[in-house]
């Protein structure tokens, strides 16, 4: 205890000279832990040994080889080098992020962190920056082998530097995505990984049979635009991760919901500048991004609190109106989604040249189908709201994912089985979620299909709107209390 003297033989607490004290606390903590983990040390050492052995083998063998054989060795060395880097940056690091927040939640250490001056933002950013920094360290440690490859063949330094940067950028985005999903349960994380693998393959299958507008969405896009989109995606995943651990009094909905609108901004600029292909690609990205943001926003049954409303009420007028689109909970997200999907779609059709004329109506209909696809799980969520309150996001995701899988199965059955099973696909096409996915690959839809699709979409929207009545009533009550308090 305090009465026990400190003997000279006992070393005083180690002065923390490993990291300067001005560095963010969370980053320092995560780096200290991360650099000591067996995973990092093992990977670091294993990569060095593998590359050293490979380079020695290539150098010894190349002396005795004919020029043709040397080229083969160079290809093998290059392939091995880039495979190692890709695995580390795009698989190992995001996989480490997958358990990052959950470990804090399970250890119940988040409460202690929240009581310090660390905000949810700083906690998430520290974890993300630490993981990316560790990947950067591995990358830098591998660079000498990149140069040594010269002796086993040839090196294009400019191209390699660009690839390294692109890999690091992709690693940053995927790590943020891993952090976002790490706030969920293990089951949901496993399902997310499976959904990602299936989704990639379904997308490839769908895109193969569709128009050029869908098959090459990013064709002609310059690195700046790709960087811009990457930064927006990164920001979204980070804010989504922040929301997993932020206290209920904090509202991050505005930040998340404004990102798709920012993504949409370059579209008219590119179109007006005459770069219709780039504008189309950016519109495609912004559309997908909007769907992603809407899907995550709609999977929340939180109700607004007075602290969420105050910043909007204080500014009055327009801010008060805008605030209704930026409150936590699916009812606010629902009206946001309607605007976020309708406004760009209508705006896009007004700008000539961005969407080919024969696809205008199709894009508009896809927008409506997307609206229905995202609203349908909300209607389901509203029915089970009380029991699903704690895991609303998971329930929403499961309904959305389940319906999507149903669409994929229906498409697969229709393609691979006798004609008599065609009705399964027709039925799936009518339903909101599966109908959206199946309609992506269809160039023509019959009137009757469109009538049923439209009817179900408006039914889902109407039901969700009716279910949100209590939310808006509660909001009005809080507002009136706040006004009275001010008076």
């Amino acid at each position, binding site marked *: *205890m*305090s*009465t*026990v003297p*400190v003997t000279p033989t*006992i*070393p*005083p*607490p*180690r*002065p*923390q000279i490993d990291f300067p*004290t*001005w560095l963010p*606390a*969370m980053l*320092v*903590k995560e780096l*200290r*832990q991360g650099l*000591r*983990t067996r995973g990092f040390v093992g990977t670091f050492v294993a990569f060095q040994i593998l590359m050293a052995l490979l380079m020695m083998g290539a150098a010894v063998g190349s002396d005795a080889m004919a020029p043709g054989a040397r080229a083969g060795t160079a290809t093998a060395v290059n392939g091995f080098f880039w495979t190692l880097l890709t695995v580390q940056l795009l698989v190992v690091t995001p996989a480490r992020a997958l358990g990052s927040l959950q470990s804090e939640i399970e*250890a*119940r*250490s988040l*409460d*202690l*962190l*929240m*009581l*310090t*001056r*660390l905000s949810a933002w700083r906690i998430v950013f520290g974890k993300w920056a630490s993981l990316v920094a560790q990947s950067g360290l591995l990358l830098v440690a591998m660079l000498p082998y990149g140069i040594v490859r010269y002796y086993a063949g040839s090196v294009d330094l400019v191209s390699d530097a660009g690839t390294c940067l692109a890999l690091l950028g992709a690693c940053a985005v995927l790590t943020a995505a891993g952090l976002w999903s790490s706030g969920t349960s293990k089951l949901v994380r496993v399902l997310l990984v499976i959904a990602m693998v299936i989704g990639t393959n379904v997308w490839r299958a769908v895109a193969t049979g569709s128009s050029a507008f869908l098959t090459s969405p990013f064709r002609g896009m310059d690195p700046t635009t790709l960087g811009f989109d990457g930064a927006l995606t990164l920001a979204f995943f980070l804010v989504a991760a922040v929301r997993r651990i932020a*206290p*209920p*009094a904090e509202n991050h909905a505005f930040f998340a919901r404004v990102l798709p609108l920012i993504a949409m901004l370059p579209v008219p600029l590119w179109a007006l500048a005459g770069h219709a292909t780039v504008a189309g690609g950016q519109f495609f990205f912004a559309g997908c991004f909007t769907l992603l943001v809407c899907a995550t926003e709609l999977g929340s*049954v*939180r*109700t*607004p*609190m*007075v*602290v969420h409303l105050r910043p909007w009420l204080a500014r009055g007028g327009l801010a008060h109106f805008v605030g209704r689109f930026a409150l936590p909970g699916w009812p606010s997200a629902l009206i946001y989604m309607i605007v976020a999907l309708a406004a760009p779609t209508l705006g896009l059709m007004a700008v000539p040249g961005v969407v080919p004329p024969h696809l205008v109506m199709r894009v508009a209909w896809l927008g409506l189908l997307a609206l229905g696809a995202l609203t349908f799980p909300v209607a389901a969520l509203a029915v089970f*709201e*009380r029991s699903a*309150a704690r895991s609303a996001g998971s329930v929403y995701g499961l309904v959305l994912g389940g319906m999507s899988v149903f669409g994929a199965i229906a498409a697969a059955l229709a393609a691979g089985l006798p004609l008599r099973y065609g009705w399964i696909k027709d039925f799936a096409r009518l339903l909101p979620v599966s109908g959206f996915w199946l309609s992506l690959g269809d160039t023509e839809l019959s009137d009757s299909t469109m009538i049923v699709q439209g009817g179900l979409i408006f039914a889902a929207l109407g039901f969700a709107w009716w279910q949100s009545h*209590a939310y808006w009533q*509660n909001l009005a*009550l*809080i507002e009136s*209390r706040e006004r009275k308090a001010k008076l």
Partner: protein
Amino acid sequence: MSAAFLEVEGLVRWFDGVRAVNGVSFEIPAGAVVGLIGANGAGKTTTMRLLATLDLPDRGVIRLGGVDVVERPNEVRRRIGWMPDYFPAYKDTTVGDYIDFFGRANGLHGAELLRRVMEVTEFTDLVPLAQRPMDRLSKGQTQRLCLARTLLNDPDFLILDEPAAGLDPKARLEFKNLVRVLRERGKTILISSHILSELGEMCDTLIFMDRGAVMHHGDTGTLRRGGATTGACVVDIVIDGAVVPLLEWLAVRPGWKLLNERRDGARAEFANVEAAALAAELRRLVTDGVAVTDFHREERRLEEAFVEMLREPPLLKKTPPAEGKTP
């Protein structure tokens, strides 16, 4: 002690349709050490979490030094130190790294960080353990590390949830000494514990909670003397000579009830807990000619008082949740 430092008014917190905290109100003056007592599920930890800004009340107000805990949580967090009843250990982290991290997280930098880390490490006697991985600490060492972390931001108000749980007698004594030193340094401390005798020694006042409600808030002396719940006290009287005059006096004197008689005296209950009233009765007893040689008020153990509190009727009521919660 000064005016109320912590004010809690009508605190309500619902969990799945059950009121975990049911209209809790109390005040704690600055510099006081207050014990929070209750059975498992009484609402102690929920109350503490609400005070620590880690949860939001469905209803009620909490003010710490005049600052609303719900309205300005960040301001309050800088003034509180919370020690939970569990210890989240980090992997691959030494004691020194852990304290250093929380120092940084509390906004300390440069020389100030090193100075503060040294201070709390020495205060909690963790200097010899600075290089030890934190998952290799004993329970007592772990509790000291927890306290060191809690003290890093030099808080005015300490919330200690079951700090002595699982400690051996030596570690418990050490911990008690630390609390004593903190009290001398003017910290306001709220401690919850199941070890009531220790709380009685450490605390100025005790708050008894049951089923989410405060059953009693008062000093330990009142609780021991039993007046808190019955409005009466038990007195043991020893006399010189025959016991009959005493028994007769007790029989005729209003407010007295004989509990049991002995050869040299009797135990009796007096229906007033005020010290002045009791002193007046003693004077009257002597002037009435009873040869009193000893007269003292009996004290109960806190455990007995606690059990007595639990016999009180439940206060649980169900009303709909307020704004900000899932309907």
